[in-house]
């Protein structure tokens, strides 16, 4: 039984890696290929043309990359500013109507994105927020904030605020307490919540398209343009550029995140 269990786990792990890498292989080949058509198994010639064009000013890739980074970073910062206190209240305190508040927090996850976008479009139009980066940032908060709040609520549910009272009584000001006691305690949650938020914002398409009105061309919008134009080589190159920040973000935080998941796995085993 034990041998089978290990075999099964390894097989599952292998499949999982294959699953995430498999999609990248054709993209990688495409980005270096010229005239790769059926029935060729490999492209006839390899070239850096697609990459050269993608990284040039005329393609607009670098501009889109920058806009995407700015938008996702701003969404993450805003989600933290709102999600941290909200998660603290939900995680630490019991109050009347808490279930209702939790349901309201989760509601955007149940509604499809384009329904939300249709509804918000009219509101944003009136507020003059359409076709602007600010509007896109705000609308990205809709699908991201629930995750941020839920992660922070989970962190605070296991947090003892008496540590803050202890710090104050030892002579720390409110600000020192936040910096030296509260933040270190909830840092893993901040990283996980920020990672979720950044990646969800990074992959938004419909919301960006409808509120940004096509004027705010984030990387997924640009990618879609090239993909529908049939430029497989450019699509491959841009797709790899598009995936990169997500991988970097995961790698940068994996130490803290895996610490948490190790703890969860441990608790699960116990």
């Amino acid at each position: 039984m034990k041998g089978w269990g290990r075999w099964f786990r390894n097989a599952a792990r292998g499949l999982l890696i294959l699953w995430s890498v498999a999609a990248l292989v054709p993209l990688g080949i495409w980005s270096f290929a010229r005239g790769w058509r059926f029935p060729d198994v490999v492209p006839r010639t390899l070239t850096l043309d697609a990459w050269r064009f993608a990284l040039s000013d005329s393609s607009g890739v670098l501009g889109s990359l920058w806009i995407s980074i700015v938008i996702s970073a701003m969404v993450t910062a805003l989600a933290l500013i709102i999600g941290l206190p909200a998660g603290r209240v939900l995680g630490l305190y019991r109050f009347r109507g808490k279930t209702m508040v939790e349901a309201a927090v989760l509601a955007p996850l149940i509604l499809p994105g384009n329904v939300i976008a249709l509804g918000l479009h009219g509101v944003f139009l009136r507020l003059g927020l359409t076709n602007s980066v600010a509007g896109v940032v705000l609308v990205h908060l809709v699908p991201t904030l629930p995750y941020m709040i839920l992660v922070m609520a989970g962190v605070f549910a296991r947090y003892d605020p008496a540590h803050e009272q202890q710090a104050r009584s030892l002579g720390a000001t409110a600000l020192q307490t936040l910096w030296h006691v509260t933040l270190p305690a909830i840092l893993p949650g901040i990283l996980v919540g920020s990672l979720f938020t950044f990646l969800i914002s990074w992959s938004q398409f419909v919301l960006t398209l409808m509120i940004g009105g096509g004027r705010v061309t984030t990387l997924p919008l640009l990618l879609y343009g090239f993909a529908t134009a049939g430029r497989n080589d450019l699509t491959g190159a841009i797709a790899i550029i598009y995936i990169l920040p997500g991988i970097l973000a995961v790698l940068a935080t994996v130490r803290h995140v895996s610490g948490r998941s190790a703890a969860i796995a441990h608790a699960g085993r116990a």
Partner: protein
Amino acid sequence: MTQVDLFRLGLTYPGRAVAALEDLTLSVKSGSMTAILGPSGSGKSTLLKLIAGTIVPDRGDIQFDAGSILSLQPEQRGAVMVFQDHLLFPHLTVAGNVGFGLRMRGVARQQIDRAVRDMLDKVQMADFGPRRAASLSGGQQQRVALVRALIVQPKVLLLDEPLSSLDAYLRSEMRDLIIALQRETAVTTLLVTHDQQEAMIMADSVALMMAGRLVQHDLPDVVFQRPASIAAARFFGARTFVEGTVQAGRFVSSLGVLDLGASFSDGPGILTIRPEAVQLGQDAENTLAATLRSRQFMGTQTLLRLAVGPVELEALVPPDRAVGLEPGCAVQVHLPRPALWILPKGTLADG
């Protein structure tokens, strides 16, 4: 050395009908160790939090050396709290925890290191500086929490049930350590506890709290032997209460006429006696004929329930004295005069 005065403190938590603290006035002598003793829910911990500044009273004033501290932030008061569950900062080392208060005050690094070493030395934990707080045992954590508080030389040390989370065998050791450190630093200390023995052993004076009110504040032996109310007497283990009248140094009641040792003012009153003060056998004074109702072996003592006329009397006697006594048999007991205590009449309803 700081004198602490609480004036008519009152607090009602939002949404609660009953006040957590009511009209509480208490004076704590500079450099003393005062136990705040009481059953759980009596408002002891609320009192500490008010002094620490975690919560703000609805009414009344708190003064350190005759100056109000109510408008001060917790970190400005110089009242350091040591919590029951130690609350070491998990992301810091032992040395980081002990030096925390000095670091927040901007003390130079070398000075902090030296002070931390001295402090850890005092509690025989000199080698523990680099260890993670979470790797320590409960007793070690409590010692670190204690020196972390003392290193900032607080005006007032607030100890919230410092022994209750420790195993029994560690308790007396920690108790002696706290007493020694308090004597050495002479820091005015308030010790919250529900354990009467702990309060008697550790404190210079005991403040008994019940239902948010101060019942009695006096020397430990006075609070123990001369309770102010039936509730206080019950808290310290008395079970026998008899209504009667004091007449010229005698107490007349359904127990008959008893000689009182001390002088009580004439008039109605309630007599109480601690069960371990009730003696088996005959004596020149206050000897009563009783019937044994039941006998309960309790280890170091045996509990006898006796009936004297209509009155039930409890007695705790050495187990060997109770050998051969069966329920229903007649025994003689006597009540030594110094052990008799008269509560002012009118408190029977509160009990």
